[in-house]
């Protein structure tokens, strides 16, 4: 063998050796540890929810010291980027024991067959209540993310879209929280007349923009009808009067000047800051607000909520529909410590832990636990006759690809005033037909 070939091979060997010596050995040791529960958690380490989680992990280790002696809990604080960080672990078939993220975002993992169905596990006894684990959760919460008749997620905290207001401001202006759409418009008018911009909004957040139209059509028609239209069932179309009327409701808010000035270019968290500073009267967003704004609230500010108003002119609409999402925990298939993971989830969804969460202004999915002070009344909207639906007027993530291609940008543009109600409905219908034609052309399934 020539000397140069030898040198080439030796260089290769040295390089390989260097890779072996200096690669990240921690990840391998974590994966191979027999007594370490690995959790991918959706919060950052400096967030208050992480404090609760850390404390819960310590309590779990103590409470289960006999069953899992010396168990360690390794938490990866992924800060909402759980899926991105999870991806390589799932691909190589070495998943963590527990993953945590909003339920809608975890759904692709179910569709890819990567999560454990938890139906049987949910019939185990609850950790600190004398009933099956499943029965401790609020009714209907599992239906939100059920997939092909199976439950894959354990919900912890809830995200519901509601209107937030300042009780002190409302008392001062003699305003009572509205129940109907007409009352809502009247509240907006009163606020405007008193020099307060009625609605706070960050138009650069597309999800928040869409929530307005999703709310409107869940009142002008039924959630079942919206779903039927999205699935292209015969006799349905996006330019039906109920959808145009929904679009007109959204447009009306803009035309009447009820949305804060400059909202089209406003970036999060400007809207909620304007609201707590009393510049705006109403904020339509999720129930994470009390926790998120806790440290920004002025002393004379008392947070209250009311539901998205009903539409008396449409008694056939879904007056009781309440959209809901949940932060969920799931166990990937192939998790090394399945039993410990199940016990851990039973433990952190105990009533005691739910009450601790409530004290931190986080509403819990556990029935009968305390409700954060700012969210008092929310439990009423979560039980019959109220109907829990997934976001985007019930469409949720079942048709995520359709949603991305067809209505997403149009619904947002409607709120931003870039497109009129009728034009928007026509455009959505055309995009919808194009999507289904394309699916037909390629023999694909709508998704």
């Amino acid at each position, binding site marked *: 063998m020539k000397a*140069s070939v030898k040198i080439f091979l030796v*260089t290769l060997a040295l390089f390989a050796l260097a890779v072996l010596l200096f690669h990240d050995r921690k990840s391998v040791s974590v994966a191979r540890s027999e007594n370490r529960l690995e959790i991918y958690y959706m919060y950052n380490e400096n967030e208050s929810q992480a404090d609760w989680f850390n404390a819960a992990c310590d309590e779990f280790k103590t409470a289960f010291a006999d069953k899992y002696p010396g168990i360690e809990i390794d938490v990866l604080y992924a800060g909402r980027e759980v899926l991105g960080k999870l991806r390589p672990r799932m691909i190589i078939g070495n998943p963590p024991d527990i993953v945590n993220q909003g339920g809608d*975002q975890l759904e*692709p993992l179910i569709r890819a067959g990567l999560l454990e169905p938890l139906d049987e596990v949910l019939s185990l006894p609850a950790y600190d209540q004398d009933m099956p684990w499943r029965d401790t959760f609020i009714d209907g919460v599992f239906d939100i993310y059920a997939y092909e008749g199976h439950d894959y997620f354990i919900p912890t905290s809830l995200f519901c879209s509601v209107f937030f207001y300042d009780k002190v401001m409302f008392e001062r202006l003699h305003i009572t929280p509205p129940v109907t759409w007409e009352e809502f418009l009247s509240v907006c008018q009163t606020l405007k007349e008193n020099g307060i911009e009625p609605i706070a909004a960050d138009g650069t957040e597309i999800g928040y923009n869409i929530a307005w139209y999703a709310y409107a059509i869940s009142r002008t028609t039924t959630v079942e009808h919206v779903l039927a239209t999205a699935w292209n069932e015969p006799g349905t179309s996006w330019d039906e009067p109920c959808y145009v009327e929904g679009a007109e409701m959204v447009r009306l808010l803009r035309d009447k000047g009820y949305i804060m000035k400059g909202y*089209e270019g406003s970036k999060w968290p400007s809207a909620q800051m304007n609201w707590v500073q009393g510049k705006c009267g109403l904020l339509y967003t999720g129930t994470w607000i009390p926790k998120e704004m806790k440290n920004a609230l002025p002393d004379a500010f008392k947070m209250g909520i009311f539901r998205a108003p009903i539409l008396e002119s449409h008694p056939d609409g879904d007056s009781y529909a309440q959209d809901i999402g949940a932060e969920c925990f799931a166990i990937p298939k192939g998790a090394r410590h399945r039993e410990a993971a199940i016990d851990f989830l039973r433990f952190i969804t105990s009533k005691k832990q739910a009450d601790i969460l409530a004290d931190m202004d986080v509403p819990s999915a556990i029935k009968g636990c305390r409700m954060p002070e700012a969210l008092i009344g929310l439990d009423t909207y979560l039980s019959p006759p109220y109907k829990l639906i997934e976001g985007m007027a019930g469409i949720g993530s079942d048709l995520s690809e359709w949603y991305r291609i067809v209505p997403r940008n149009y619904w947002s*543009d409607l709120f931003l005033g870039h497109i009129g109600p009728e034009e928007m409905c026509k455009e959505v219908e055309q995009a919808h037909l194009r999507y289904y034609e394309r699916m037909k052309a*390629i023999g694909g399934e709508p998704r």
Partner: protein
Amino acid sequence: MIVRGKHRWWHFFTHPGAVLVAPAFILYTAFFVYPAAMAFYVSLTRWSGFSPVRTFIGLDNFRELYHESLYWRAVSNNFIFMFGAGAAIFFFALLFAAALSNRNFPGRRFFKTMLFAPYVVSIVAIAVLWTFVYDPNWGLLNSMLSFFARFLVRLGLLSPDRAQVGVLWLGSWGMAMPSLSAVMVWAGIGFYVILLMAGIDRIPDDLYEAARIDGANEKQSFFHITLPLLRDVLVIAISIHIIGALKQFGLIWAMTRGTNYTHTMETYMYDVAFEPRTMSFRMGYGTAMTVVLFFMVILLTFTFNIIMRKAEVEY
């Protein structure tokens, strides 16, 4: 001594220089060649990007891509950036480069610095800055237009109801694409001016002197000496622009996050394959887009180079 005709590719490994090249070769193979090859395979599969299982579906992703109007809108946007922004960039870059190459140009250094400054600023910072400029309610541009409109109202040249200008600069396809192109020109022109200036500085002065003696004016010198002799620099500059325009991502994402009318191939690919807000997670389909992009870049730069080679001149 290397004998021609007996040179074979495996001789590379017996060459002493191979040792020096080996680490780079290994890294390049591991981190570019292999992933690129895998991308071709992934584009032929249905894959969420999470499961180890990929389902081979042949050319279905490409067929679907062919039928997807949003994707073609994104492609057309790339071409608008390539031709529209490109024409503006090279027109102004040539103009500025020709002017600033003149050593007697007043404030030469200042203008060079001013033109090049945006190029060294982070693209995200530029995007944030221009989002403020374009804001329909409190943006600099509309405020200035409103100020001007109020002035015209005072003069009685405009009706009072038109005093408040609320142009949605990024709000529709017709406005958003020119607005984004303008930012692209502003941010990128400095680089091309410097590149072209370097090319102009290389042209021997005696050619201009000879032209002057023969009675050529400045314009004739520019078109008959400067421009032809800048050909090789222009080829490189335009090739860089073509590749950049086709791979446009950062500016569009930071300014609009990609919408129906501002998506480029890259932002659309990200939306389809990675964006948790859209919950699409179609890695195979997204990768098919990058494969198409790869061939577009190759085809366009190759075609452009062939065209330019035919136009070669010598003095």
